[in-house]
């Protein structure tokens, strides 16, 4: 392919990575960054004037729906949406049909991902069928490159099972067990946050304690087993406080938060529009403030979208009958810039850390999030931090339309994305 052989220079941007910030051109050849500095030239140029040049973003939590749910998204369309969002790596969640509890399923996901516009990693199930009882073949999945194990969509409710999974994961280098912290016996039957708004709307709630009770228990299990634990999509002040305390005690606990949990509250459900239905649900003002605080003070390690496509007609059902979940890949960066960087909650560097190199570290990815320097893999994104745009669901690359930000004006947009030295997004358009 001619493109891959061409040398490429990203010109005139401001490079921001874990080592700092500097105005510099970035020269790329044969899939690697060759040089970073002023006045560089190459066979092909990507203009980055006025833009930030960052290591490619990394999303630890994406539902690609393939196999089994291809009417909502495929690996190809999800990866395209990811690339447009500046992501060079994503972790595909295992709640597909069949789920990622079998090496053959994971192998086929990785093969499809290899042909796509993003580096698709696969999470593996903790338990067979995500049923929460018998351990999945974690070792066989680990041999295929799986590092994150989760039953996401479902919580591992039984402490005994979670304990066995944590203990066993200690024998798998780089592995981390990731929990969807929502106790089924407390949350099941609920459709939104249990609180003032669920009381007003007559909709059964999913209480905050469903999350915090599991986080408390699993921090204790992490301590008892000496294993790493990662908490998916944390949404409550109390759970974040527990993670803060666990980290202060030196436990190997990490956490992620989704953009909708630092931008939207349960009040959004007053319209009964299922665009705002998600598990864990949109919560109170105090919880949103706590998520922002957690992002600012290091308690939260990653912004992860929990990109959850659903076919249009399923999100047109009444609120209680619609499936939970929101799109996120194409809006995460812009939402972060608009709601956190703009108002000064985070610096751009801190935001990029949460979107790129810190999630890469959680997942043990060595090819992503690396400092933009000679010898590093050329997985890079170019961001226009000042471009304003309006979210139009019909113009998203995802196969689905269920974004909660429809009609919103956002600031910040990806201009180019480079994957393994090849441009996959140029001037905001995917290359294929």
């Amino acid at each position, binding site marked *: 392919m001619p493109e891959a052989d061409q040398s490429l220079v990203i010109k005139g941007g401001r490079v921001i990575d874990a080592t700092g910030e500097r105005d510099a051109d970035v020269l790329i050849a044969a899939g690697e960054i060759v040089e970073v500095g002023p006045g560089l030239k190459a066979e092909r140029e990507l203009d980055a004037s006025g833009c930030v040049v960052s290591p490619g973003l990394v999303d630890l939590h994406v539902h690609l729906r393939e196999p089994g749910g291809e009417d909502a998204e495929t690996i190809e369309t999800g990866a395209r949406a990811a690339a447009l969002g500046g992501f060079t790596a994503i972790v595909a969640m295992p709640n597909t049909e069949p789920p990622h509890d079998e090496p053959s399923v994971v192998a086929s996901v990785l093969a499809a991902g290899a042909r796509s516009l993003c580096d698709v990693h696969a999470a593996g199930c903790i338990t067979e069928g995500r049923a929460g009882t018998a351990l999945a073949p974690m070792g066989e999945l680990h041999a295929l490159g799986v590092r994150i194990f989760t039953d996401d969509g479902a919580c591992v409710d039984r402490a005994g099972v979670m304990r066995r999974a944590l203990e066993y994961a200690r024998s798998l280098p780089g592995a981390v067990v990731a929990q969807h912290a929502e106790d089924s016996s407390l949350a099941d039957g609920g459709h939104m946050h*249990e*609180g*003032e708004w*669920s*009381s*007003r*709307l*007559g*909709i*059964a*709630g999913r*209480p905050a304690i469903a999350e915090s009770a599991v986080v408390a228990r699993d921090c204790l299990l992490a301590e008892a087993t000496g294993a790493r634990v990662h908490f998916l999509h944390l949404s409550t002040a109390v759970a974040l406080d527990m993670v803060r305390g666990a980290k202060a005690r030196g436990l190997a606990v990490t956490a992620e938060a989704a953009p909708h949990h630092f931008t939207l509250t349960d009040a959004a459900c007053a*319209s*009964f*529009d299922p665009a705002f239905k998600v598990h864990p649900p949109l919560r109170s003002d105090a919880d949103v403030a706590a998520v922002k605080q957690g992002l600012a003070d290091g308690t939260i390690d990653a912004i992860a979208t929990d990109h959850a496509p659903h076919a249009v*007609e399923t999100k*047109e*059902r*009444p*609120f*209680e*009958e619609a499936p939970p979940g929101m799109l996120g890949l194409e809006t995460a960066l812009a939402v972060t810039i608009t709601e956190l960087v703009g108002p000064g909650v985070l610096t751009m560097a801190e935001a990029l850390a949460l979107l790129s190199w810190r999630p890469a570290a959680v997942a043990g990815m060595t090819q992503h999030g690396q400092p933009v320097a000679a010898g590093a893999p050329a997985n890079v994104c170019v961001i226009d931090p000042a471009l304003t745009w309006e979210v139009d669901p019909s113009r998203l690359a995802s196969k689905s339309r269920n974004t909660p930000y429809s009609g919103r004006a956002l600031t910040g947009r990806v201009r180019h994305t480079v994957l393994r030295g090849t441009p996959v997004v140029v001037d905001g358009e995917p290359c294929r």
Partner: protein
Amino acid sequence: MKHLLSIADFDRDELETLLALSEDFLHVTEREIPKVPALRGKVVVSLFYEDSTRTRISFETAAKRLSCDVMSFSVGSSSVSKGEGLRDTVQTIAAMGIDAVVVRHSAAGAPARVASWIDASIINAGDGSHEHPTQALLDLLTLRRSRGSDLSGLRVGIVGDIVNSRVARSLVLGLDTLGAATTLIAPPTLLPPTLDGWPADSTHDLDELLPELDVLYLLRIQRERKSADRLPSLREYTTRWGLTVERAKRLKPDTLVMHPGPMNRGVEIAAEVAEGPASLITEQVTNGVAVRMAVLYTLLGSGAQVA
């Protein structure tokens, strides 16, 4: 006013006007030919996704008494059972040229969603555990006819499965608009998670409050909404919160007893009490048609005087 989705859609004047209009329609229903041409030519569709013969017939009767053309859709008899979604169903109906849709659905907010998809007036006939505005209206009319048009200061106790009750929410909102004071009386597991948005206070102790109430409104323990799962047993519920014959004796002589129906005789109310002199239960049913006529007339009428 285009839709009736919640009792909170009315302010005090609008509510009192509608109740007065309902009294006028009550007189119409008592005539030999209980029909007026007020809404002739208007097409009203009843779209009932939940089983409810009495409410649907009440609405359809109300529409016919106003000379509307009435179409009736219930789940199972239509393409809904073939998997057609709610949006497609209402848009198909709307394409036939209609003026109002009366929607009953097991999901909160379904009528609100319908209102966002089509042009017709939408009337909420009960949406999940959210609201049942016309039930509250007929309850308020019943109280008004018994106690006079000024309900301010009236002390009302609502007993039972509050958390799952759309009737309770609408009634509390309506009573608050008219200046009455409501207490929710239930075991802790049947109260909403917070009282935010409920202009009422609460207690677990029915016996203590009983002698102070002007109105005792009983809710059915809803087996289909699994209220029984939140209780140790129905027997225990009856012992602690049921309107037994013994408790009925401790009511004030003029305390009114109400129930939205259908009743579980022997659970929330003793059979003898349901038929007793304090009970307004049959009047509630009668008043339903008049109140629904008033709602249809308010939403679809030209504002001219009722015949």
